[in-house]
């Protein structure tokens, strides 16, 4: 009888602990020494070489703002895959699914004096899938992506400000390097996609503190 009671007590304690853990994990993801403000994020990226436009988001940007008072922040921005189409060499219609795969967290900095602005740096690998050329599915495998992550610097545009609650716009440029592991399409993709002068334009909104 005692053993049964003890087993029940242990089971109850375990379930309380589990419930507590689950409750805790529903809270902020902010690392120690930071507090979390989440934003709705959406935008576009334009690849200069092909003219293709890729929708970014909708997604949730999790900003972990330092509690040290230096205005620094880190964060996570996982973007959903997006479809894009363009005409290769101006003639052949190409479609693909583009996935920005995060290579770690982004790092940012708030301005030290008003007006409030933000700058941020983030690395993503660009992954291509579901490629069709002239409407014909063209296998590129499951690992068709840039050899090195693309390095994106984005910031509040000149003349604009960032609002902790309302968010704001972030714009930047980046260079796409060579792709690998795209099968027979690797040379073609490297002919069409890599290059500099690609742009990103993000709109962050609906900032909310996550306790």
């Amino acid at each position, binding site marked *: 009888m005692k053993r049964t009671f003890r087993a029940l007590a242990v089971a109850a304690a375990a379930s309380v602990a589990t419930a507590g853990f689950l409750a805790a994990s529903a809270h902020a993801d902010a690392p120690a020494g930071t507090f979390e403000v989440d934003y709705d994020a959406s935008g576009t990226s334009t690849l200069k070489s092909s003219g293709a436009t890729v929708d970014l988001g909708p997604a949730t940007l999790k900003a972990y703002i*330092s509690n040290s*008072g230096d205005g620094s922040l880190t964060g996570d921005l996982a973007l959903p895959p997006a479809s894009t189409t363009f005409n290769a060499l101006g003639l052949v219609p190409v479609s693909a699914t583009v996935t920005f795969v995060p290579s770690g967290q982004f790092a940012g900095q708030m301005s030290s004096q*008003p007006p409030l602005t933000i700058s941020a740096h983030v690395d993503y690998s660009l992954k291509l899938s579901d490629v069709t050329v002239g409407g014909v599915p063209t296998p590129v495998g499951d690992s068709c992506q840039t050899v090195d992550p693309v390095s994106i610097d984005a910031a509040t545009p000149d003349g604009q400000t960032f609002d*902790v609650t309302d968010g704001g716009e972030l714009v930047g440029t980046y260079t796409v390097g060579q792709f690998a592991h795209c099968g027979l399409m690797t040379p073609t993709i490297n002919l069409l996609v890599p290059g500099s002068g690609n742009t990103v334009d993000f709109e962050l909104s609906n900032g909310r503190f996550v306790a």
Partner: protein
Amino acid sequence: MRTPLPRLAASAFAAVVTMVLAVAPADAHPAPFDATAGGASAGQIAVTAVAGPFMFKDTTTGVTFTCASLTIPGHLVVGNDRPGSGIATLDASEGLWSDCAGPAGLRFQWTGYGTWSFDIDDVTNGVATGAITNMRAHVVISQGPTCSFDVGADTGTFTSSGTSTVPPGAETATYTNSSQALDLPASNPGSLGLWNVDDGSGHAYCITAALWGQGDNLSMSTSFHLTADDPGDNPIAIN
């Protein structure tokens, strides 16, 4: 032939005089003032100022804070021929700021300090104009980054912590007899200041000085409904 001109001039002069008289306030006057409160006889009566929402803005950075409601007990001096200074007072230390939030919903706790004084210098058509003076408060972020600051005057030099080092500030205010509204207008240009900012790391700002920094100008805006605690002492009027 020369007669119509003087006549015209006289008519024009009369019209101007009439317009000036029409525009001039009928009962604008400086102190002394008469304060009445229902059937209360001369002396001090208990009043309560209830506001909601209450907004507080760092006019240097544009960051705003809000409280869903604010209740402050106080007193009104009833009587005739009163000076404008301290005609009503609010015991800010007994004030209750409820449901206060800042940018992105960061949570704040407000504590008022001292006795805020409603000082008037004019009454026009049932509207008393003046300022709420001796304003001080202490604000702590209760959810979010570590940060606290004091609210006081808009000028000065403050290097030590503690509210005792902050001179009190003032905001323009009006009291309207017909609505019993004690208003701090949103147009207040930031005559209060933010001091003793402490982010827990030795910085005189919170997160970044682009949000809250030492010496930033501040303004409060709200509309209090001012009522006597004894129902028989209403309405409150200042003339």
